[in-house]
């Protein structure tokens, strides 16, 4: 508690407050732009913080993260085209509301839902993260390796239409992660004698290439000649009747979102859908669902925001990214030489608590700034598409070049960007690749460390109860398609299938 107050003291200095405000505004502005989800927003805005000290940079990131998520839901409501997976469900009810002239109410329900879900989620971070970190300190290399294997399996199996394509994407990521010097022996792998490659491929370059360059090329190949026309809105507000319908969904959201965000199951996509189904079942206005029921906006938005908070718990305490945004943020930590994980709360206590405090501040700023600014954000949806995608390539180049001031990185980004294009064309999800790049080297180290302790015996990988439990879960996921065949009655799909996974770009 005292540490949290210290965190507030750090975060509330005028400079940091300014960083938080800039982060929220930039994050929302970039997130609102069609085609840019929170992961791409964070990746594109990374270079802005290269010159900053870490605390200020992460305070800004917190703002960008929540701002980007909020921006995504605005696109969903006003254009009916979710820019990211967390906002897919919002479009179900949000867009019909906007078409009926209730866009202002939909935006208000989304904004307040974000605020509520985010605040409750962040309170849960405060309560849970130190506890998890304290216990995670004791878990050893075999357990960490098991958890990373679980993350690999979950990210390729739980989401996406095709498992083999998910695995292919993961392996591409693992291959990119292999490039460079072996961390334990210093031997060159896949460097082909190039000094540039000996340092390894910068994760930021990979992230920007896959999310921004790949996306821009892919959209260019199929650019919609007549972009959707956004629905104009006024200032968001809620009537008493609306409030009566929305406060319960707002409060229920975190209960679904937070736990799902914390486990490696692909972030907000599943929980927002569950929240939607729950609200539909509990609503007194079932007939309105599909035609613009406000509960269907309030619940999922609160859920999405809380799941973002859950993601942060896993990312900060275990160093395990469960969503694309968390993966990019982890990469950002690493560029500062900070390794998220169990020891983070001891080694970087000041930074972590300032970051958590700034989550509260960022959420409040988001609510205060975005309700009045909503009509302005809606105007951003009209940006001419040539400028939008030219701008994405422009800032991607700035970001990749600024990492090392090296033209080689631009060429590398181009090659990986073309790869990202091909992956989008043939339905290979991008998220497993980025998780592979980030977690691959860490997983290899944990595995080799475990085997070193056991003198090469494979039992060294399964010598703790926790590792065994995790491997059982892994096996259950792997063999689930087989198990399902033997289940007595397959549960019928309860509701329209969620739109195919769209990794938030």
């Amino acid at each position, binding site marked *: 508690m005292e540490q949290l107050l210290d965190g507030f003291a750090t975060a509330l200095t005028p400079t940091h407050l300014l960083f938080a405000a800039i982060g929220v505004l930039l994050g929302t502005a970039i997130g609102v732009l*069609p*085609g840019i989800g929170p992961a791409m927003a964070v990746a594109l805005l990374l*270079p*802005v913080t290269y*010159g*900053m000290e870490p605390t200020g940079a992460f305070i800004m990131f917190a703002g960008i993260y929540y701002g980007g998520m909020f921006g995504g839901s605005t696109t969903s409501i006003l*254009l009916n*085209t979710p*820019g990211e997976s967390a906002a897919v469900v919002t479009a179900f009810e949000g867009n019909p509301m906007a078409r009926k002239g209730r866009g202002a109410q939909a935006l208000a329900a989304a904004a307040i839902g974000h605020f509520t879900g985010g605040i409750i989620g962040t309170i849960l971070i405060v309560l849970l993260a130190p506890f998890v970190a304290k216990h995670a300190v004791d878990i050893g290399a075999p357990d960490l390796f098991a958890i990373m294997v679980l993350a690999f399996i979950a990210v390729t199996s739980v989401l996406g*239409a*095709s498992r083999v394509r998910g695995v*292919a994407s993961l*392996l*591409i990521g*693992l*291959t990119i992660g*292999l490039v460079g010097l072996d961390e*334990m*022996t210093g031997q060159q*792998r*896949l460097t*082909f004698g190039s000094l540039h490659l000996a340092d390894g491929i910068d994760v930021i370059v990979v992230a920007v290439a896959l999310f921004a360059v790949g*996306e*821009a090329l*892919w*959209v*260019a*190949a*199929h*650019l*919609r000649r007549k*972009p*959707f026309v956004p629905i104009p809105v006024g200032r968001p507000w809620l009537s008493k009747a609306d409030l009566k319908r929305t406060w319960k969904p707002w409060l229920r959201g975190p209960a679904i979102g937070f736990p799902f965000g914390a486990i490696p199951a692909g972030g907000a996509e599943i929980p927002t859908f569950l929240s939607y189904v729950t609200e539909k079942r509990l609503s007194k206005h079932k007939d309105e669902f599909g035609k613009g029921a406000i509960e269907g906006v309030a619940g999922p938005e609160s859920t999405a925001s809380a799941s973002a908070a859950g993601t942060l718990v896993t990312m900060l305490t275990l160093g395990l990214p469960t969503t694309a945004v968390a993966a990019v943020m982890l990469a950002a930590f690493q560029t500062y030489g900070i390794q998220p994980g169990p020891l983070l709360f001891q080694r970087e206590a000041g930074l972590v608590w300032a970051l958590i405090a700034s989550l509260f501040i960022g959420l409040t700023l988001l609510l205060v700034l975005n309700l009045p600014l909503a009509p302005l954000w809606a105007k951003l949806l009209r940006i*001419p598409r*040539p400028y939008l*995608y*030219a*701008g994405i*390539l*422009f800032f991607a*180049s*700035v970001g990749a*070049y*600024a990492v090392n001031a090296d033209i080689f990185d*631009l060429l590398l980004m*181009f090659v990986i960007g073309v790869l990202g294009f*091909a992956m*989008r*064309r*043939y*339905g*290979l999800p991008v998220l497993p690749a980025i998780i592979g790049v980030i977690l691959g080297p860490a997983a*290899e180290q944990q*595995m*080799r*460390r475990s*085997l*070193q302790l056991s003198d090469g015996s494979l039992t060294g990988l399964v010598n703790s109860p926790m590792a065994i439990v995790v491997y059982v879960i892994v096996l259950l996921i792997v063999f689930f398609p087989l198990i399902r065949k033997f289940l007595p009655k397959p549960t019928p799909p309860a509701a329209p299938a969620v739109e195919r996974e*769209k990794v938030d*770009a």
Partner: protein
Amino acid sequence: MTATKAWLRERSELGICALLVVLGVLVLTDAVRIPTDFAQRGPVGPKAVPILVGSLLLVVAVMLARDVLRGGRGEAESGEDVDLSEPADWRTVLLLCGAFLANAALIGVVGFPISGAILFWGAAYALGSRAYVRDPLIAAGLSILTFAVFNNLLGVPLPGGPLMEVF
């Protein structure tokens, strides 16, 4: 001949399988040449994981090929500005790649303010913008502003090139 072409066009995803095979072979041949007789710490050396990843790449390539030959197709990603009903517009993609590579080629020679402007204008042109006065003005403005903000305000150095040396 045309029948073969049509057959391949329908199954162009086999290209991904070929890519996976190439990657797998690359990873495996590279792993084999890593000398392990010295400096090895622990029972598992630097070879093990590349050999695992390389072999899995080959296995997945075969599995994916089997899926494609049985009629499986990867679903192209949709998006707000993506219209999948039209065939791919390769001219736009190639022009865009050209604009991107032009920046990479020129940034060291003429500096970021100029090469960035060329990138933005070129990309906007590739994507169908034809405002011959407004586009270059926006490109130049954005490029110079970005340079000033990053270089002078944020402390992230970008190459100024001859243009900035004049000031």
